[in-house]
């Protein structure tokens, strides 16, 4: 399109160099391009038809089909241990609507990795990485969200059998929302209130098998299923999970930091804030991720605004590009600035997180509370502003923004999920406020 070509000719910098800055290194920016190119040459990885025309069942089937094809090609395309390459590949092939392993790499393996002992890694980590088991992370409950202090699901230690008895006493105690919990996962990291001899020790993580590995049928004592359609992300099966006095061995408690001895002795973690670790990790990552959602919507709106011509300014012989209107620029450019700002803020926050991780190895968790507070605020502000920016991008596309041909709604639906997952925004802001007041 000559209008877009003209725009590209006007640019004053090298977009490959800018991509290197956005994605943190020239190497990763290049790998992204190579992976996209590689995917485009594998016909089985192409969409069977545009996603908006598929039913939810068809989307689920399509996501699953692609995962199985990807599993075959994966080693040839990416370094499997490189999480960033893996994420890019999956987004490229499957997009934003989810798939059966959407949470496996990002929310199942990480807690196993960071909260599990060496023996537990030996037992499960390799299997998870080879995708011999499919997992998810189940914390949120129907009636209490992810409020750890109010979790109703209990894990009561039975000294006589050296087992934990998992139980959901009410409907509100059902795990509700976890991605891929409903139909795909056969294992889950479950967060439950640890109880030993009538004493409650609060939220702890447990590795729990929920389905038979051969038949995929739910195990006895397990109630599991899909929670139904959502605003977006409908190719993923977000699920519910209940336990009826379901028993698991003692060594299924992830015991890197806190332990339960066979006789029921509880050994607490060296520092209470150690449990912030997982939340901080995900929320640090969310800033960058949300910036990219915003960039997706802006890519659509800015390109279209350079193609769409409407009305006249000085020259009455040609309609002008809508991008030349100040209102359109005011609608889009501050969001472009925010998309870049989120990338850079995300990268700096991730560095701080790595600093905290290194500190933790030597018992120094000083920065953890600061970062926990900051990332609570970041995830709230960034998800909110991303949602606003995407909505502006949609309206900047005129009526066509309302069509699923723009695909903006799908990006919007996924991005604003972030306003409530990993902690509802108001709750998160109040967490940061507590820190500001104390300071």
């Amino acid at each position, binding site marked *: *399109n000559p209008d*877009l070509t003209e725009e590209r000719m*006007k*640019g*004053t*910098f*090298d*977009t490959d*160099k800018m*991509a290197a800055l*956005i994605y943190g290194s020239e190497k990763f920016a290049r790998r992204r391009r190579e992976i*996209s190119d590689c995917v*485009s040459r594998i016909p089985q990885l*192409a969409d069977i038809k545009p*996603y908006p*025309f598929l039913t939810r069942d068809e989307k689920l089937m399509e996501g699953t089909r692609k995962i199985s094809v990807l599993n075959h090609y994966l080693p040839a395309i990416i370094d499997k241990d490189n999480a960033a390459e893996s994420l890019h590949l999956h987004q*490229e092939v499957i997009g934003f609507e989810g798939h059966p392993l959407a949470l496996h790499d990002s929310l199942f393996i990480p807690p196993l990795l960071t909260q599990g002992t060496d023996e537990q890694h030996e037992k499960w980590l390799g299997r998870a990485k080879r995708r011999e088991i499919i997992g998810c992370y189940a914390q949120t409950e129907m009636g209490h969200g992810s409020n750890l202090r109010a979790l109703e699901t209990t894990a009561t230690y039975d000294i006589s059998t050296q087992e934990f008895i998992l139980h959901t006493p009410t409907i509100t105690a059902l795990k509700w929302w976890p991605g891929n919990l409903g139909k795909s996962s056969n294992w889950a990291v479950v967060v439950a209130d640890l109880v030993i001899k009538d004493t409650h020790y609060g939220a702890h993580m447990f590795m729990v098998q929920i389905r038979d590995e051969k038949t995929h049928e739910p195990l006895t004592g397990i109630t599991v299923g899909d929670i139904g359609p959502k605003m977006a992300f409908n190719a993923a099966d977000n699920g519910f999970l209940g336990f009826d006095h379901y028993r698991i061995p003692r060594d299924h408690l992830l015991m890197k930091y806190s332990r339960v001895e066979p006789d029921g002795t509880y050994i607490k973690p060296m520092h209470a804030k150690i449990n912030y670790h997982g939340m901080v990790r995900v929320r640090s990552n969310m800033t960058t991720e949300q910036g*990219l959602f915003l*960039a*997706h919507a*802006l*890519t*659509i709106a*800015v*390109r*279209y605004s*350079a*193609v769409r011509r409407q009305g006249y300014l000085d020259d009455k012989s040609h309609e002008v590009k809508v991008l030349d209107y100040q209102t359109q*620029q*005011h609608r*889009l*450019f*501050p969001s*472009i*600035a*925010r998309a870049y*700002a989120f990338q*850079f*803020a995300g990268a700096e926050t991730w560095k701080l997180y790595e600093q905290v991780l290194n500190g933790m190895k030597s018992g120094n968790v000083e920065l953890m509370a*600061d970062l926990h507070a*900051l990332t609570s*605020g*970041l995830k*709230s*502000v*960034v998800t909110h502003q991303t949602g606003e920016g995407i909505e502006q991008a949609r309206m900047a596309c005129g009526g*066509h923004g309302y069509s699923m*041909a*723009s*695909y*903006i709604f799908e990006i919007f639906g996924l991005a604003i999920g972030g306003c409530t997952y990993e902690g509802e925004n108001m709750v998160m*802001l*109040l967490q*940061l*406020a507590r*820190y*500001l*007041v*104390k*300071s």
Partner: protein
Amino acid sequence: VELVQSGKSVGPMVAYLAEPDTKVDLTTGPEAYVKVFQHAARRQAWKATDKFHELMKSGQSRDIAWNNCAVELIRASRLHTRLYIMETFIRRVSSISDISIKKVLIDLVNVHVNYEVLDIGTYALEHVSSTQLDSIRSQLYSSLDTLRPNAVSLIDSFQISDMQLRSVLGRRDGHVYPNLFEWAKASPLNQTHVLPSVNQYLKPMMDK
């Protein structure tokens, strides 16, 4: 705020809470805008904390007092976070050595700081005059204009492939309208000329 009030030291992320207010000269660059934001964030955090303390002094329990100033507290949190984003953006851009990249990102930083300060205008007015705010507004329009030639390249730089974007409007080649028509033709509703719903409901209705 409580630590600052009791004369104790605070970490670098909240050091601005203890700083005194100073006059700002907006012509000195983005750092001046950071000062405006710091002022707004600091003032809001102190105001919210003071209100919280006052409510407790008046006899409200800690939890009730907290709930009664939650909206003010949330505003303090938002300002703190937006300040952090602005600071990291400026810090990152100032560390870039490639001149052409740095120049366009400075243009983008200018859009950002002007827009952000205007967006918190009611807070900013406690620190800058309305004339200064008008000047920021003019700066914003001028920054939008400066950025205009690089708009497409800035979003192209995210290098999101057509496959990942899945958007007819956002195609890299810009061939929107013919593809929009092809996309519509692919709709399942267009696979037959007469839908079953017409035969089942509309026709009998019209035949009456």
